[in-house]
Every structure is written in C-alpha cells, then in structure tokens.
C-alpha cells in the first residue's frame, strides 16, 4: 500500500452513485453535488478497480488496515469477481477528500464494529464484477463478437475460438465504457480467491522496517510536537511559563492548544518532549478533581437496585418469577475502565496554510479524520485533505475520536506552512484515552422446587458509550443506549443467545466524567463475563453440568448451539480432563457472528493460573480468509486475557493513575495459551458476521468458569491482579 503516491496524484473522476451507506456517521460532511474534475491518469474501471496496461491490478480499499487483515480480505472479494491474477494485485486508499468530491463513491470509511468486510462485501464484489464485465465487453468490441462468447479468468479474456487477450491490453478501452449497475455475483461455493487462506498483501515491509506508520512520517521542513492535555477530564489550562523552556535546545514554540492542552514544538520530538516535561503548567482542574474509582463505584452501585432501568430485553415477568421462586441465586459483577493502548501512540501530522490544510494520520475512519480537519482548520472541504497512513494498532481508539487530529491542526495553524508532526507520549496515551466503560451488574436467577430456571433479571449499571459519543442515537431511543446490551439484546446482530422464561435485562445509566470509547469488542467484554459466568453459577446451583444446563435454553438458537457444541466436542467435554486441568465454557452472538470458547487451565497455590489451551469456534456466516480469521481469534484472546488478568485504569483525583506498561501490563508470549480455532461459516442468507471482535468476549468467562471449577472460588470483578491472581 503506497500512500505517498496519493499525495501527489489526484485522479478525480465522477464515479458511480454512492455505494453502501445506511450507517450512522457521527459527523456532517458536505457530500455535495459538486462535480469533480476528471484527470484520470490511469484506467479506472468503476471506482474500485484500476487495471494498468502492464496487467497490474490496483484495488481501492476504503476501510483502514490496522493489522486485522481487512485490505487483504476486501481485495480477495474484489479479485474474486474481477477474475484477475492474484499475484498482480496491490491496494491503495482513495483519500477521504476524494470520497467527498466523488459523492461518497466508496461509501463508509469507518473501520470499527468488525464492519470492514461484513458491511461492504456486496458493493465491493459488485465493483469487481462490474470491472470484469467492462474488460470483457472491451475485448468483445475489439473482436466484434457478442460479449456472451467471451469469458475471463486469471486476468486473461478468452474468445470462442480460443483467442486470448489480457486485461492490460483492453483496459484503456474498457475504462471508457459505462459501469454496469448491480452486476450479478458469484455463488460463494464457486470462490477461488475469496474464502481461501491466502497470505496477507502487506507483510514484506513490516519485517524490514520499511513500512511507514504515522509516527514515522517525514516531510520537508517538518517540526515535531509533544502535548499535554489537562489530566483531569473536564479541566483546562490555567497558565504555563513558556519562557522557562523557550531557550532549551531545539525548541521553536510553545503553544496552547484549545482551552485544554499545551504543546511544545521543536526540531525533534525528543527535544519537544524534554521541554514539555520541564514546562511549568498550572491546570484548572475543574469540577471532577475529587472523583475516584471508589466514588464512581459507589454511584454505580446505586443503580443495581434502582427501581427502573432502560429495558434491553424482556419476556414474561421476571420480577414476579423471582418473587415466587423456591430458590434464588444472586451475584454482583463489575468491569473496570481499560485503555486501548495500541503499540503506536496517537499521532497526526498537519500542514496548514490559508488555502489548504492537509493531515497525514493513522486512522480507523478517514472520513471522521476529514471532519476533524474541517472543524479545526475552519476551511471548506475542497481545501482540506487527509492521507491515511498505516496504523500501529487501533482497537477502537482511532475511529470515532479524532482528538489528536484536532490538536495537530490547531498547532499547525500557529505555524502556517510548516508541517507539524504531533506524537503523544505513552504517558499521554494512557491518561487521555477513550476508555472501555465501567459497568456493574446484578444478576438474579429464580428456580422452582424442581430446579427449573423460571426467571432471570440482569441489571446493568454503568456508563453508556453512545451517550457520550453518539448522543443522537440515545435521544432517538428515548434515553436508552441499545449498545449497552450487546450480546444480550432483544434482537439483531447482538441478540441474546438463550430463551429464558421470564427474562428482564435492563440498564441503569450512570455516566462518570471519564470519557468512554469503543474498545475492541465494546460492551460484549463485560456482558459475556456477566452472563456466561452467571449461567455457570446457575448450573452449579441446580447441580447440573454447565453444558447440559445451557443446552436447555438453546433450542431456538441453533447457531449458538452449534458453536458451543463444536468447542465442547473438540475439548472433550464429555470426558474427564487430564489430571490437574480444569475446564470452562462460554458463548455469545456478537457483531452478527456466533462464537464460543472452551478453556483448559491449571492453578498452582490457588492463585497462579496457567491457561494451557483455548478451543474457539466462530461462525461468521461467510469466511473470506480463514488464515487471517485464525489470527484474529488468537489475537483477540491476547487482548481479552490481558484485560482479564492485568488491566485496570484506576481513577484518583479525577485522573487516570496508570501511565505506562509498567502499571498497565499486557500479556507476553510465555503466557500465551495454545489457541485452536474452529472456523465454521454456516452460509445462507443471514447477514455476514464480523471477525475482529466477537471472539474476544468468550476467553475471559471461559477462563473464569474454569477457575471456579479448579478452586470453587467465583471471581466477579476484573482484573484478576486485584485478587492477587497472576497469569503464568
């Protein structure tokens, strides 16, 4: 992927009508009827495909690659329909500015919610098919024969008498033909490129150091900036003494950034950071300076017993069933704030003049970055541009939130014409997160005298991401955050996987001042722990096997049951575990995929857990690249188990306490379990499921359930380090 080429090249051509859409985007962009100039420098076949005369194929990718393999998967889908030679494929990002100028020809750029493939597969495949039809038509025109007599495979077009030509030879003519609308797509059972475990397209430069991430960017005349925002959320800058650092080596300028931040601009980032650390800053800490983790927990606790909550799922009368129960089981769980901590800290590079503002940024959503450039620069859309650069991880931090873009533009405005690369320190990254929200949960299960489950109430109490980030959705839902119920919701891509008589799942919303964000998996992380650990508690209370107990409520959920059965069978649930090994299970539907895990652990001294093995099943309905899915599953467990064992952002005096990996640790290779993934796409007409996030949620409850089976101790708050439990 070569982003630099797009800095100089503009190939604005009026494209086909807006593809995709239907997604709630959280910002306004002027997708006007403005016509863009045509200056096609290379043969474009619709908006998704360029075939060059030398037969090389460029596939345009709107979504962002952050390690999840989406550019490879999306390119496979396009190439499948295009019938091109896979070895000739490379990819490029059309810029967000081009998307605006071309009336959103590439649809959404948002790369979150495990949406990259599942929400664009249809229109990108149609893009590939349309390009193929144009190429074949051009060949037929040249041969003066009916197009039906020609076919394409492997970048070669064959005529009725065996005559052949290549894509490259007809591409110029093809690019002048109209783009077919809504071409017919292949049956996935005929796939030859999609569905196959192909190697990623973007590996080579990652092993030699050649790949340029946002933080590696160099532009002529560029200066570097380091920044500190008020560490107490809601506070602002009171004063700072720029004179104290003005004479330090390399320092060019000290600037206030909005009301809340101060940055030092210097020749090198190290100089900027050194000066920033020496800069006396006085903060006006504002109204939240006394808030702590325990004061937040106290507030959430009140919600556990509040009379009413926003209802996410309801059938029958749970409260009545509980009131008349022969036996009640009750448990309270909690989940902490957590930071995304991608390996590459936040950064953006901006160059501002009165007629142009350009930003280079590793972003999960180029359009959101573009909107931030517009807002911060005050310039109209045709004077702004964003160039997407490779991300050193995203996990949700680099999508909806573009605070670093805003900052970079504000700093660049202070030094017009000079490119400014703003890089956050790890410390800044840790204390200025958009955190996995805090949540507590009280669960009550009711049994009759024969140990039949007759009702369940799940009361969530805690923070809403949407209330902070997409308030319009919450308003539309009359105050409810539907996302809070991911995995336990009444319907849809996060539908609850059990049928339980007399069910109530509701949410008492409490929104502390710590800004929440979409963190890989989002609300399934806590909801799956709450629900799947509690199901084990209920099974235990009923004296039943955890798998058998679950199966009773899965009759109407065959796909949930299928993934659960698959992991149970592979781990050998019906046979005793090896000596000293204990097992646990969990499953969920999330992001339209069905996922399950079975974990095997051992425990020494009661508090040292070794996770030996996790069998994971995932049904994403269609699997575009099984090898990359396998890697996402294993990777999601590293992220999820790090969160389970090691990670909490605690709040003291209104700010986050943990400032680096020494106190906010992440799993190492020694702690990595063997992950055996079962990829079992069920096909059919269900909406395609996501891959990057769903499995993250099943690792933690499977391990917690295994820990209970090993020790008889039920852990109900995260992370395990707070219980003196380590991961070995």
């Amino acid at each position, binding site marked *: 992927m070569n982003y630099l080429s797009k800095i100089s090249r503009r190939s604005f051509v009026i494209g086909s009508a807006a593809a995709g859409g239907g997604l709630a985007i959280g910002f306004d962009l002027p997708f006007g009827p403005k016509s863009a100039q045509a200056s096609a420098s290379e043969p474009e076949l619709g908006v998704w495909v360029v075939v060059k005369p030398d037969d090389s194929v460029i596939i345009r990718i709107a979504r962002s690659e952050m390690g999840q393999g989406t550019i490879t998967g999306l390119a496979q889908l396009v190439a499948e329909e295009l019938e091109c030679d896979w070895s000739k494929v490379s990819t490029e990002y059309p810029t967000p500015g081009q998307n605006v100028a071309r009336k959103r020809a590439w649809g959404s750029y948002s790369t979150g919610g495990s949406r990259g493939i599942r929400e664009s597969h249809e229109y990108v495949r149609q893009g590939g098919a349309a390009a193929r039809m144009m190429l074949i038509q051009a060949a037929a025109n040249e041969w003066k024969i009916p197009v039906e007599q020609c076919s394409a495979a492997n970048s070669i077009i064959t005529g009725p008498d065996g005559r052949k030509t290549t894509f490259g030879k007809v591409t110029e003519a093809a690019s002048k033909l109209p783009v077919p609308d809504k071409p017919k797509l292949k049956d996935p059972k005929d796939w030859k490129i999609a569905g196959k475990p192909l190697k990623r397209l973007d590996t080579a430069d990652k092993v030699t*150091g050649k790949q340029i991430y946002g933080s590696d960017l160099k532009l002529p005349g560029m200066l570097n900036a380091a920044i500190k925002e008020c560490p107490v959320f809601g506070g602002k800058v009171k004063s700072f003494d720029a004179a104290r650092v003005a004479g330090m080596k390399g320092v060019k300028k000290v600037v206030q950034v909005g009301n809340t931040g101060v940055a030092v601009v210097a020749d090198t980032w190290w100089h900027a950071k050194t000066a920033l650390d020496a800069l006396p800053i006085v903060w006006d800490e504002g109204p939240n300076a006394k808030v702590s983790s325990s004061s937040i927990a106290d507030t959430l606790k009140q919600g556990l017993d509040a009379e009413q909550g926003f209802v996410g799922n309801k059938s029958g009368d749970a409260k009545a069933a509980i009131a008349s129960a022969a036996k009640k089981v009750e448990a309270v769980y909690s989940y902490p704030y957590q930071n995304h901590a991608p390996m590459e800290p936040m950064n953006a590079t901006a160059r501002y003049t009165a007629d142009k503002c350009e930003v280079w940024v590793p972003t999960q959503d180029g359009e959101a970055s573009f909107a931030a450039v517009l807002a911060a620069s005050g310039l109209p859309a045709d004077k702004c541009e964003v160039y997407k650069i490779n991300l*050193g991880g995203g996990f949700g931090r680099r999508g909806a939130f573009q605070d670093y873009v805003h900052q970079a533009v504000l700093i660049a405005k202070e030094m017009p014409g000079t490119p400014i690369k703003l890089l956050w320190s790890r410390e800044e990254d840790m204390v200025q997160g958009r955190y996995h929200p805090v949540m507590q949960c009280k669960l009550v299960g009711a049994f009759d005298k024969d140990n039949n489950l007759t009702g369940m109430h799940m009361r969530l109490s805690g923070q809403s991401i949407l209330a902070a980030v997409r308030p319009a959705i919450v308003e539309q839902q009359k105050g409810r955050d539907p996302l809070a119920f991911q995995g336990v919701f009444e319907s849809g891509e996060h539908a609850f996987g059990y049928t339980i008589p007399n069910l109530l799942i509701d949410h008492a919303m409490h929104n502390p001042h710590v800004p929440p964000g979409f963190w890989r998996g989002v609300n399934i992380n806590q909801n799956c722990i709450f629900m799947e650990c509690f199901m084990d508690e209920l099974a235990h209370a009923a004296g039943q096997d955890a798998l058998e107990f679950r199966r009773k409520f899965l009759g109407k959920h065959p796909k949930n049951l299928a993934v659960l059965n698959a992991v149970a069978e592979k781990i050998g649930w019906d046979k005793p575990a090896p000596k000293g090994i204990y097992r646990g299970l969990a499953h969920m539907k999330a992001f339209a995929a069905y996922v399950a895990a079975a974990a095997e652990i051992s425990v020494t001294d009661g508090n040292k857990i070794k996770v030996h093995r996790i069998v994971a099943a995932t049904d994403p309905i269609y699997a575009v690249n099984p090898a990359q899915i396998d*890697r996402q599953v294993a990777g999601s467990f590293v992220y999820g188990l790090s969160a389970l064992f090691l990670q909490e952002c605690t709040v003291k005096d209104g700010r986050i306490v943990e400032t680096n990996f020494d106190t906010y640790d992440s799993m190492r290779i020694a702690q990595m379990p063997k992950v055996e993934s079962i990829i079992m796409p069920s096909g059919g007409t269900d909406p395609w499921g996501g891959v990057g996030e769903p499995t993250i949620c099943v690792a933690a409850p499977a391990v917690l359930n295994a820990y209970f089976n090993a020790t008889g101790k039920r852990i109900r708050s995260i992370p395990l380090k707070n219980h003196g439990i380590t991961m070995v």
Partner: protein
Amino acid sequence: MANLTINGKAFDLDVEPDTPLLWAIRENAGLTGTKYGCGIAQCGACTVHIDGVAIRSCGVPVSEAVGKQITTIEGLASANGALHKVQQAWIANDVPQCGYCQTGMIMAVAALLKDKPKPTDADIDTAITNICRCGTFQQVREAIHQAATA
C-alpha cells in the same frame, strides 16, 4: 555530538549524550524501523543489537553506545539484500498484524537464535518478553521454531 556506528555505517549525530539511543536512531539517523512504544524499557518495540546483544534502545543513552556496533532492523538483512532467516520465517508464517511491534520482536528473536540456535519453548518464554497488542504470539512461536530449523 556523538559518533555512532549503525549498521556498519558511521553517523555523526548532533545529539546530547543523554539522548536515548532510540531517538537518536529514529530522528537523527533517520532510521524509523526501530519503534517507540513505551520509553521505559517495558515493551521491546525499540529493540536493537549493541555488539550483537538485544537491547531496548529507549533505555540506553547515546553516550553508552559510542564505539559499539549498533544493528537496527534496517541492517539485519545481509549486505546483498537477502533477508535474515527470522525475517524469512516471519513472511512464511504471515506473522505481523499491524506490524508495529514486529521489528523489535524480530531483533529480539534474531539475538536469541544467535545465542541458542535451537531454542525450546521455555527458552522462548524467557528470552522473548516483547509486548504485542495485536496478539501475534502464536505465529511468533511457530516462526521462531521454523527459523531455527532453516
């Protein structure tokens, strides 16, 4: 000023002696394959070799690296451009996800294999303590074993 030898080349860099080697490599020598992840020797993204030993360069002042042979990811392949066997195994096993941690990971593994050409899983667990937030460890382990038999 500091005279450093990086990948066999002499660099005269305008840096203060207490500048972390990481930043001298990235900003002054312009070799950005060595990454910043934490700055406190926790994550390993900045791993380079100093006289053949894997070192987290964010924790080493430039003054300590003077007169020593520094190798970064850009210098790991042989002079004729042939990739190091660890890099080859990384490609063969499709190891990187975002890739940001991988240059440091590869440098750490290359040093391990020099020390222990056929490392056991336990050797790997002890020697490789780099953080990878994408979670590539399963492929990393497979690729190390493959490189060891190459």
